[in-house]
């Protein structure tokens, strides 16, 4: 039988409205790491504190919730007996949001304090965009990576583009 072809998680991108650009992002393999209680993972890797994003070359360890980190940019190391390891490469849709009005766009969907001091560059947070549960990573003063459940990609695109349109339309008033 011929090989199965992969389908992308989201279509219709990149999308630029006003000063903001929404693009699909492929983080490559994503592995969820959940340490068992009382284990010291440091011989293998440094586990991020809440909100922390640890970058080592191409590899990133992103805090993704209570007792949970996502590893991207590299294969899962051997953590037998130290942590539960689950593949999450297919469960999420990833996008990037960049541009001068990104904080205003996100403010229409996300209740977090997005000011620089409260959500510094290089940190992550779990929150919501409207009704979607998301993982947010701030990669710049006006740049975020956003991960949401793959099956809700259409809603993610719809809600983000709606907010982008609303922000851009104010400029024309």
């Amino acid at each position: 039988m011929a090989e199965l072809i992969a389908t992308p998680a989201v279509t219709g991108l990149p999308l630029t409205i006003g000063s903001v650009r929404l693009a699909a992002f492929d983080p490559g393999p994503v592995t969820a790491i959940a340490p068992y209680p009382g284990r010291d993972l440091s011989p293998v890797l440094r586990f991020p504190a809440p909100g922390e994003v640890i970058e080592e070359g191409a590899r990133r360890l992103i805090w993704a919730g209570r007792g949970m980190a996502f590893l991207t940019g590299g294969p899962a190391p051997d953590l037998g007996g130290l942590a539960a390891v689950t593949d999450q490469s297919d469960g999420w849709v990833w996008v990037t949001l960049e541009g001068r009005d990104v904080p205003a766009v996100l403010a229409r969907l996300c209740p977090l304090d997005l000011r620089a001091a409260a959500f510094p560059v290089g940190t992550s947070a779990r929150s919501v965009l409207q009704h979607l549960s998301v993982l947010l990573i701030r990669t710049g003063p006006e740049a975020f990576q956003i991960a949401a459940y793959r099956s809700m990609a259409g809603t993610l695109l719809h809600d983000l583009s709606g907010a982008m349109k609303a922000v851009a339309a104010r400029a024309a008033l």
Partner: protein
Amino acid sequence: MSQSHRIPGKGLLIDRARPVRFSFDGRAYQGFSGDTLASALLASGTRLMGRSFKYHRPRGAMTAGSEEPSALVEIHEGAQQTPNVRATVQEIYEGLEARSQNHLGPLAFDLLAVNDWMAPFLSAGFYYKTFMWPRAFWEKLYEPAIRRAAGLGSLSGRHDEAVYEKAFAHCDLLVIGAGPAGLMAALIAARAGADVILADEEVRMGGRLLADQPEVGGQAGPDWAAGVVAELAALPNVRLMTRTTVTGAYDDGTFGALERVSLHRAPGEAPRECFWRIVAQRAILAAGALERPIAHPDNDRPGVMLASGVAGHLAKWGVNPGRVVIFSNNDGGLAAARSLTAQGVEIAAYVDPRPIPVTEDFPVYAGAEVVGTRGRMGLKEVAVRHKGGTSMIEARTLALAGGWNPTLHLTCHLNTRPQWDEKIAAFVPRPGAVPGLSVTGAARGRFSTAACLADGAAVVTEVLADLGLRAPDLPVPGAEDRPYGIAPLWAVDAGGRAWLDFANDVTTKDVKLAAQEGFRSVEHMKRYTTQGMAPDQGKSSNVAALAVLAEATGQGIPATGTTTYRPPFIPVSIAAMGAGGRAEGFAPRRLLTSDARSRAMGAPMIEAGLWYRPSYFPRQGEADWRAACDREVMQVREHVGVADVSTLGKIDVQGADAARFLDLVYTNTMSTLAPGKVRYGLMLREDGFVLDDGTCARLGPEHFLVTTTTAAAGLVMRHMDFVHQAFCGGWDVRMSSVTESWAQFCIAGPKAPALLAVLGINADLPFMGCAPVTVGGVRGRLFRISFSGEQGYEIAVPTRYGAALFDRLVEAAQGLEGCAYGMEALNVLRVEKGFITHAEIHGRVTADDVGLGKMVSGKKDCIGKAASLRPGLTEAGREQLVGLMPVNQGEVLSAGAHLYNERDPATREHNQGYVTSVAPSPTLGCWLGLGFLKDGRARHGQVIRLDDGLRGRKVLVEVCDPVFFDPEGGRMRG
């Protein structure tokens, strides 16, 4: 329409170079850019803008702001229609279409004005004493008539499809109100480096500096305000929000606010409104004060306004009020009279009940009162009672100045009441009423410009200290510091109706009647008379009404107190609060990898939780769902069918204690499950009732995969998470949801192994086994489980390959005389086999009720076990799962119907049970039902009656085992 009532050179907010055309009640008008509907109409000489709520009396604008009670209009924008829009707030745009409300026939000839002549019969509470007889007339005649007559404004009956938005904001300091006090506070805080949000209801910041235009620091008030605003606008730590009303104070420094984003333009791309939730470390309320009218006979005619409204319309929009009589009880009213005179307005009389010894450029009637007015469609004359008798004075405008009420509403939103300040005859905020909210300026009773500026500076300094910031030295600019002398006058007693609440047509007589009838508390008076219950929420009537009540009961104002203040401060459209949530926006849509293909195949999609699943796959010539469903069922039973089952929850459980943990959450034992095997399991809630059923697969010694029903996936995850955190804290077990990670498809039917062979998969797996497989070059998992009762498999691949695999499966199935099947067929197949879903596990059944009592292991504990042994859950006579077949084969069964003994009436006392699921079975040639029947398992063979009161369906059914087809299960085990 010419603008006959403008004063040249006046009007801060209008641009005479940009005329704007609009219509009111179908008549064309012209105004200027920056006009409100009210200012443009007044400038054109039109004072009549509406009809009052109950008596349908002609009314016009009373104010120049958001507290407007009378000039409420409908704005028509294509198919959209917004009622109860304040004409004093709505800015005109080219092509604006506005209509007056609440009249039958033209505004000038309202047929319902007969209510005014019937006023003696329509006093407060009249509907409690009338429409009683004959009783039969109530439902058919009185109620519909009252409903038609009641209400203010009308709806289009269509969805509001305009664009709205919601947003969040965070700051160190929220300053509410940009008058002199608010501007001082914001400026000092901004210079101290705080993140400041300054919000003001109006188009331009400045508050009363724009309407009264006092000098500030040697500059004209508006110029000083503009300078401050310019500095604030240039600072990166300041956000200015105009046209933004803060609507409510909530917990933890959260405030709601409504911003009018584009209501001043024709509908377009931009949102009409934005509902904000602002979280502030600290907040300062500098919302100013609202002027009170004075209640006197016929004080509600078009042309009777608040003095602040007259001054505001003149200063901001250049409206000429014509000859003005001013009726005032305080020094502010006298100041207004002088100011108007200086601007060229003719003051026909200044009337003041106080014995003030003044000589002015206009006639002064001291120790006098206004006792009436004439001019039904627009004020013509004012009756003034003075020492010499009563004089009729010609006037176009009567300006009432009854004193000022601090705008303290937000301070009371967390359930406190304000306190009475005798000196200013007004209520003032109670300090500390809302944690983190300070009050400054007129909002706490400081009424002179100098006092507001100084108070703003003083309060912000304290607040900045709380925030750990130092206030910069900023000298407070000089300004007038007039004393505020006032002699309270709530109502003039001179016969005739004197209005308190203009919006709900409540007079002093109504309030006195309430007291007389025993409704002596202010909360009772409010509901009995409806005073304060209109869209303006009593902004210009609450204090006067309770004062009248206080006098009628003899209790005094402090003892009478105010009613409860609740958000929102102004009306907030539900479209704004619910922005983004309309129609399909209400919830996220979860789409399957097979979604596009299913829709392309013509499958109607139905909602299952947040997912969309195909209902059936219609073929050419099939008339309806039934034809397709019957065919799909037969194809599965005789050949093979494929269905997308990705929606079921999948929870990955790992760790040395995983088996032990699952033994705790499941009623049966999972620790004895061998790797490569799958077991059906039951979970109970802590109260002993069934939570969910599903399969559990052991993928390795410390690795399990739990499945859950579609709609309860999140619920089960939460339950397992709670059990883990609450009872198994230190255990070596970790869970994560992998529902999204796998696309999973069911392959069911006698030719299922043949289909797998087409895919290159060897189907040599025992029943209830699982194994890794490779399909199309992709690593996946194969499970041999069946929900159809046929030989069945489920194949899972990483989600990105789901669409491609579904295409292959459909092609392969069709090649074997099979098909894709949907939810309808899936349901028929499982009902034929007596397999339960959450239709049966609806939250009030025990394991034994559904015939699975033996699955609760006697050898171990589990969540819910103890509670499941309670007498109420184990006693005899409980309703038990049974199958139901119609005695007459052609009859249709209904889910939701109740079950009765054959000859019993369909009453509560005779209820024997109910039907949970039904299915038309082509396999057995009749409808089948599953349901719960008292002592059901002992009644197989009995004939009872299914009674569907909703559809009028009564069917005799035979009680039987719920497994209708292949009871030994040979077909799926083979």
